């Protein structure tokens, strides 16, 4: 049994900061960038007021932020950082290093579009552009999930069979800046959920060398081992979430709505809520919704299972992979279907780039279009830009 402290109105960013305070992190280093900045500000306040006993290092760039986090993590600290967009892109190099050095850092990403042109609004290009960096990638639909998943992210990251960094993604503005009720746990409950675990660390008495140079004789093995750990994280997640005190806040790999709908909509992050709203409000029973919480390791199996009854699938990507046959999420879905030998009509939808937040009308339009395209012997794969005004 668990006990909820209470409900509080929080934005996604505030939910992150609050969770991070409760997990008793030791070290935070981050750099301001819209729409993530509020996380940094709140944490500065917690540290400054003494509510959180941690070091907050206000570095001079995101490259240094993640670098400082690696140093702190290797020194044995529980570490948190956060960023968005250009900041994440500037960390790109260091992200691979954090995972390669097996640092259980948790990072919140308030997702935002990448320049050029500069745009401060939401989309998933930032994290998708670094999706190969070997991090566990979690997506949240609302501040409640942000809160719950941030806490669980620490347990997952620090699990001795995982030891990998985790990125908790929240849509820039639509989740990061939206104030909503969040059920929070008592501090002690959170602490109990997250006992400290030992791992190798920098100390004079047991001198080890970290971040060594690997010749072709060894590199491949390190990388495969790391890939395995990431896959393992998928299994460990089940244990991590099963142990989470607030049952309704457990981090499942995906959540389903209206399972009987014959057309499945697959979606990451906040937009899933809008789709759910539309399906519910307009009684569009044809459609089921799969809100994917775990993007990496990609839960192919669970996804295929969720698609068992589907006649077609709409995959909503809030990012592009220019030049590739399909954008990131659709590409993973197609690969999973291909592997399973399932030939499901797939409509790949790119939406919401640079904060073009889907309106209800747009979602309805997308659903209608998918009905047209799916199931009438249409193409296996079709494409759509949702809300795009150009030619």
């Amino acid at each position, binding site marked *: 049994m668990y006990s909820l402290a209470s409900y509080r109105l929080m934005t996604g960013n505030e939910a992150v900061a609050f969770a991070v305070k409760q997990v008793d992190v030791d070290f935070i280093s981050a750099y301001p960038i819209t729409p993530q900045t509020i996380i940094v500000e709140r944490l500065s306040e917690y540290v400054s007021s003494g509510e959180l006993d*941690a070091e907050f290092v206000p570095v001079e760039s995101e490259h240094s932020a993640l670098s*400082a986090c690696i140093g702190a993590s290797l020194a044995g600290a529980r570490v948190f950082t956060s960023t968005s967009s250009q900041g994440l892109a500037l960390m790109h190099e*260091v992200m691979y290093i954090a995972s390669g050095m097996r640092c259980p850092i948790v990072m919140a990403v308030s997702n935002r579009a990448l320049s050029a042109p500069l745009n401060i609004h939401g989309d998933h290009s930032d994290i998708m552009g670094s999706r190969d960096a070997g991090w566990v990638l979690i997506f949240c639909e609302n501040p409640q999930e942000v809160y719950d998943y941030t806490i669980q992210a620490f347990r997952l990251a620090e699990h001795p069979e995982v030891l990998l960094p985790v990125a908790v993604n929240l849509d820039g503005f639509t989740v990061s800046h939206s104030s909503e009720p969040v059920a929070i746990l008592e501090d002690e409950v959170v602490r109990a959920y997250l006992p400290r675990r030992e791992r190798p660390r920098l100390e004079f008495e047991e001198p080890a060398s970290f971040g060594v140079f690997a010749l072709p004789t060894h590199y491949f093995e390190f990388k495969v081992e790391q890939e395995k750990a990431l896959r393992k994280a998928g299994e460990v997640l089940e244990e991590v979430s099963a142990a989470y005190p607030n049952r309704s806040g457990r981090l499942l790999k995906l959540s389903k709505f209206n399972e009987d709908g014959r057309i499945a909509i697959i979606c990451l992050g906040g937009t899933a809520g809008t789709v759910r709203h539309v399906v519910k409000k307009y009684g569009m029973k044809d459609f089921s919704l799969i809100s994917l919480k775990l993007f990496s390791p990609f839960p192919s199996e669970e996804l295929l299972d969720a698609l068992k009854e589907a006649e077609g699938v709409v995959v909503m990507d809030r990012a592009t992979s220019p030049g590739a046959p399909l954008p990131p999420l659709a590409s993973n879905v197609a690969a999973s279907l291909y592997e399973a030998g399932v030939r499901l009509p797939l409509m790949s939808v790119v939406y919401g780039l640079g904060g073009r937040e889907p309106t209800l009308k747009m979602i309805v339009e997308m659903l209608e279009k998918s009905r047209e395209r799916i199931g009438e012997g249409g193409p296996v794969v079709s494409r759509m830009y949702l809300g795009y005004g150009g030619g």
Partner: protein
Amino acid sequence: MPISKLADLYGREGLSPGHSACQGCGATIAVRQVLLAAEPPYIVVSPTGCLEVISTPYPFTAWRVPWVHVAFENAAAVASGIEAALNVLERKGIGRRHKVIVIGGDGGTFDIGLQALSGAFERGHNILYVCYDNEAYMNTGIQRSAATPPGSITTTTPAGKRERKKDIVSILVGHGSPYVATASPHLWKDLTNKVRKAQSIEGPTFLHIIAPCPRGWYFDPHLTIKLAKLAVETRIFPIYEVENGRYRINYLISRPRPVEDYLRLQNRFAHLLRPENAALLEEFKRWVEDRWSQLLKMAEAFPA
């Protein structure tokens, strides 16, 4: 407690032999001396560069002390993280403070790592940053850095570098560092005592060590220490320290040796001694003189 004789240092080795530095590598000598002097407990951070590559080919390491490398441009940021994290872990009773010592090359310090360095110094972390200066990017095969002296040939300055060497000491003094000093491995006593001093001072301190590189400077490996000495005695590499903005010249070279004595031994400067390049040589000399006279003036205006 000050180091007065070599026996004070013997047996404190922080680096093992068996690493793969070139024959006669000056950087390795410098690093050895730093570690012989450093007081435990400490942790060493290195950026990418010769030192890192020669010392840790998995599954081997030459380091007998805790050591970490993360990337080329971020050693000072990594050090900031370690330092700050250990502060709080000590406070929480689950760890203890270590002095964090960065040891990096000139490229990782003057160029690509400068911003992280500047940030760490501005924030005032309690770290000692040691730069072994071999005056170019050696690990990648001798390219120009901001520390390459004017006139010097590198693979990216085939006709000799035009710009002067970046004055890292002034820059860090400008950051308000409580202790910034230069050193040379031939003056081992000065060097090791400066390490102790720097380590004992709270806040970000900096040690700039000249590190002759036989491969990159093109000289015979047995001359490494000789060249360090010549650099100092020609006033090319002045030995001084700046404590809280106050200057002390540790080796006042009243009668400098001609710079040619130094240049002659190194192929990177061979062209400077050719008659057709007299102007370049002049330029080099002017640089040496300007720096020395600037230093004298600073020592006068801000005496220790």
